[in-house]
């Protein structure tokens, strides 16, 4: 029986649960002998001109070997927006040269013999700052009152969508609702913060250990910043303690560590503190959305408009272009007659924005799902019913959503029905009515979100693809090289299952390797929920092609026609039809000549997983505190390879998504000082705040890859966030509340209740 589709335990876990992983900060490698340590002096001010930097006091500090400022770092690249349509005058030097644009921006490098000496020394750097006005509010930013880059002429980095909106979009509507919605800034905050170790060899090549989501992309980014050829750079990926989108490519700090190693001719190491991580690692989300939705009182939505104002932070990074993904998914799961959307990304004096689990798509889902509830409330219809009336009917042939996304297949109504049934929707509504009737302090709220998202969108050029190499060894074990970059997802287990299923080699005898660019020069890494559908498919393809190579060799070995050979998976050997004794195993063949195949799997396009989440919350109407009591999730990601791994992705994603709805937010004061720079102030949900999630099975295989798999990694943050937010609003809707911005923290909810009781919806 095939092990595909079964709950194979993670082969990674024994190590992580006993000796622990080996992360960049704690790795021991002889090439790093004698390494010195980098500490970055960072801007304490959001926006200022640098008049001068005095480093004289630092040089006398204990253990200081060198101090560098932008004046020293002259041979590195100037960073600009990633695509040409982004204003190219918004430039960034790796160390701030004349202006700082967010608290935490690196201003100087201090190199010390020991790591601990760096913090003392960095405090002694004397920077003469001439403060400029902070720009925090997005409307303030778009007004161009204070320009971050005067040479750019505007704070707007880029616009997406039509230049002119249709003023007649809502002409046929009986009802139109419009609202500004905050999709707040959040911090990826992986358990492992950023880190790097770098050494240049005598051959003039750089070896850099960096926690990342794709060593090959990190190599490209690092080489570009250092202005060296990518073949001069080798990236090695130690264990990675979470990434959530923020460890793609490389940051200026990584390049500066490598630069320092070259300048000093010594190995150099750097690991940031949690403070630095919360200020220096890219943030995610950060959209101000205006949704307008209109239709008939019978529940038919006729028109929907989404306008996005995206916060870029101080410099245009990936986050600047993510609204294009938001626009791509504007209509979500719905068959609205008229839809339009437009976006504008503006720079602010805050930490730059990057990708964060879902990266542009959760924002689209949050907008349309909130809009649907606003519309339902306006016409007084059950939100589940309004959704049913407007969902796209089930389809199996690809269909364009009108914004350039080609949905491969979908059955959104079934997903919704299954979620509602599993939730006991009718009973929940009845209980809600009862509680309201008896004036219960604890109000019950039920929130729904339907979603479709895009996964495996892919490669920098051409169709989405990924490579894998499978090699069988003479001892009967096997090695897989993958271009994906697991950092918690369990590829070690999953890829071994796929090869094992083809080759008959036990999972525990298969080693999966990744993240060393000399070993695996090409690869797309792990992000955008692409890994299984492309990297996994490549493993399967390589395994199958390996069997064909082996079949020919076995035929020679056994002196029979290859067509008479049959592969016996249980024995991992070829046998000859009708002759029991005649057999040759893959291990035997590998003993005679290396037995390996590299394969590239190319997908015809991105896939579009979908689902429906139902959240149940209890809101203490006296204090505003929300308790998430249930979360029911239907996540159709096609065929599931290993339900244990898929469930893990769902649980983690749902908790993360619920946390955005309930608590998480990066907050700046009006002067641009971060108020959430430690875990005392930046709150996640912990195990004590979440229930065990109710995961409902639904698998509609895609035809885009032989595994039938779509992506699952980001479903949780896409579905759960609006479901939980909608549930909170629903809980207090009888008090007149129509909307509460995220995070729905206790004070925010309480204020919404008070405000509604005073007659403001």
């Amino acid at each position, binding site marked *: 029986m095939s092990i595909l589709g079964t709950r194979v335990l993670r082969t990674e876990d024994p190590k992580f649960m006993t000796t622990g992983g080996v992360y960049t900060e704690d790795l021991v490698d002889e090439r790093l002998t004698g390494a010195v340590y980098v500490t970055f002096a960072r801007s304490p001010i959001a926006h200022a001109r640098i008049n001068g930097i005095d480093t004289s006091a630092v040089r006398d500090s204990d253990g200081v070997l060198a101090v560098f400022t932008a004046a020293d770092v002259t041979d590195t690249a100037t960073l600009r927006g990633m695509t040409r349509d982004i204003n190219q005058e918004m430039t960034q030097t790796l160390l701030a040269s004349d202006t700082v644009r967010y608290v935490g921006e690196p201003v100087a490098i201090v190199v010390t013999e020991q790591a601990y000496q760096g*913090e003392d020394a960095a405090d002694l750097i004397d920077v003469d700052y001439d403060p400029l006005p902070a720009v925090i509010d997005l409307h303030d930013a778009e007004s161009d009152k204070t320009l971050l880059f005067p040479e750019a002429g505007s704070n707007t980095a880029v616009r997406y969508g039509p230049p002119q909106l249709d003023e007649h979009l809502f002409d046929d509507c009986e009802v139109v609702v419009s609202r500004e919605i905050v999709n707040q800034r959040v911090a990826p905050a992986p358990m492992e913060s950023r880190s790097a170790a770098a050494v240049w060899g005598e051959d003039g090549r750089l070896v850099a250990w960096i926690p990342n989501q794709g060593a090959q992309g990190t190599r490209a980014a690092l080489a570009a910043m250092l202005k060296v050829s990518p073949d001069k750079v080798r990236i090695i990926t130690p264990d990675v303690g979470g990434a959530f989108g923020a460890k793609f490519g490389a940051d200026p700090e990584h390049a500066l560590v490598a630069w320092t190693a070259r300048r000093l001719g010594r190995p150099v190491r750097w690991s940031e503190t*949690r*403070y630095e991580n919360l200020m220096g690692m890219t943030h995610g989300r950060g959209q101000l959305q205006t949704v307008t939705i209109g239709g008939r009182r019978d529940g038919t939505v006729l028109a929907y408009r989404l306008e996005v104002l995206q916060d870029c932070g101080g410099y245009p990074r990936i986050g600047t272009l993510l609204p294009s993904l938001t626009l791509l998914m504007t209509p979500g799961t719905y068959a609205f007659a008229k839809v339009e959307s437009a976006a504008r990304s503006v720079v602010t004096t805050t930490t730059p924005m990057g990708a964060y689990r879902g990266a542009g798509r959760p924002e689209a889902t949050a907008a349309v799902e909130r809009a649907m509830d606003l519309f339902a409330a306006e016409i007084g219809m059950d939100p589940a019913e309004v959704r049913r009336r407007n969902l796209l009917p089930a389809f199996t042939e690809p269909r364009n959503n009108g914004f350039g996304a080609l949905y491969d297949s979908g059955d959104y109504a079934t997903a919704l029905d299954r979620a509602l049934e599993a939730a006991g929707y009718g009973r929940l509504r009845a209980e809600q009515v009862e509680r309201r009737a008896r004036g219960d302090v604890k109000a019950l709220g039920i929130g729904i979100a339907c979603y479709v998202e895009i996964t495996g969108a892919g490669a920098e050029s051409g169709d989405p693809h990924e490579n894998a190499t499978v090699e069988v060894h003479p001892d009967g074990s096997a090695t897989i090289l993958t271009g994906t970059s697991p950092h918690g997802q369990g590829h070690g287990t999953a890829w071994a299952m796929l090869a094992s299923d083809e080759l008959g080699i036990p999972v525990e005898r298969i080693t999966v390797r990744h993240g060393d660019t000399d070993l695996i020069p090409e690869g797309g890494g792990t992000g955008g929920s692409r890994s299984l559908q492309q990297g996994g498919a490549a493993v399967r393809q390589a395994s199958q092609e390996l069997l064909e190579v082996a079949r020919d060799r076995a035929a020679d070995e056994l002196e029979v026609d290859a067509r008479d050979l049959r592969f016996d998976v249980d024995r991992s050997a070829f046998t000859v039809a009708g002759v029991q004794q005649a057999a040759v195993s893959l291990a035997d063949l590998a003993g005679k000549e290396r037995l390996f195949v590299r394969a590239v799997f190319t997908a015809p396009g991105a896939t579009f997983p979908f689902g429906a989440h139902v959240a149940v919350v209890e809101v203490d109407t006296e*204090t505003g505190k929300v308790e998430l009591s249930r979360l029911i999730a239907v996540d159709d990601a096609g065929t599931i390879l290993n339900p244990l791994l898929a469930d893990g992705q769902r649980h983690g994603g749902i908790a993360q998504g619920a946390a955005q709805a309930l608590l998480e937010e990066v907050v700046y004061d009006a002067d641009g000082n971060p108020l959430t720079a430690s875990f005392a102030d930046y*709150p996640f949900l912990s195990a004590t705040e979440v229930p065990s999630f109710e995961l409902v099975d639904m698998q509609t295989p895609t035809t885009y890859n032989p595994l039938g798999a779509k992506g699952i990694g980001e479903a949780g943050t896409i579905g759960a966030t609006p479901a939980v937010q909608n549930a909170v609003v629903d809980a207090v809707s009888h008090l007149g509340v129509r909307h509460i911005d995220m995070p729905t923290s206790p004070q925010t909810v309480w204020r919404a209740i008070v405000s509604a009781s005073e007659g403001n919806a």
Partner: protein
Amino acid sequence: MITSPFDFVTARSAEQAVALLGEYGDDAKLLAGGHSLLPMMKVRLAAPAVLVDIGGIDELAYVRLDGDDVAVGATTRHAAVATSAVLREQVPLLAHAAGLVGDPQVRHRGTIGGSLAHADPAADLPVALSALGGRVVVQGPAGRREIGADDFFQGYFTTALAEDELIVEVRLARRPGQGWGYEKFTRRANDWAIVAAATVGGRVSLANMGSQPVRALSTEQALASGSGARDAAALAAEGTRPGEDMHGDAEYRRHLARVLTRRALASAGVAD
């Protein structure tokens, strides 16, 4: 996240700790469980030149009946306070509050003396001590003296402790069977209180409604003159000066103080 340089000395007894404090003066800071002080040192909000470690003075780790009181030694860990059979029976409010401090890791390191000396107005044990009207026994060069809860806390992270004194014991009147209530309002289980209300025996104290634990005196007076919980709790925020942060502004904190006080009083068996 690395402290400034400091020296480290270990005290084997309260007397030795007092002597060391005398020797080093205001350069020194006592270290017990380290779960408040060390994080502050790591983020450089505190930079003592010398740490005097008293966490290992086992003779100060005890819970015992002593006449009409329960005496709790200063280095008794929160977990021991929370699970003490004596406290759960005689002073259940204190045991309950100790069980809500931080998370299990914090509760197994942090000490009652350390928490009270740290005097965080948002912390559990100071407000519990205030409601209980407990007394803090401190030791200095001249010997021991006792300070009542109302006099002990003097402001943000400020107490009546002299530079060369340390807490050696906390004394609480035995109250078996007496009604009590403790309502701690947090975003998450392991957070500090946005506001907390503690009540026992007609006293009501609030956490994070000012620079130190605050007695809700108007509420207490109302209760003393026969008001029900609802009316008395409505007065809970009177005279308070809560701070403001992103978790709650002053108006919200005052509102919470009233709600939590009513709930705490209800737990204590005070009728509406």
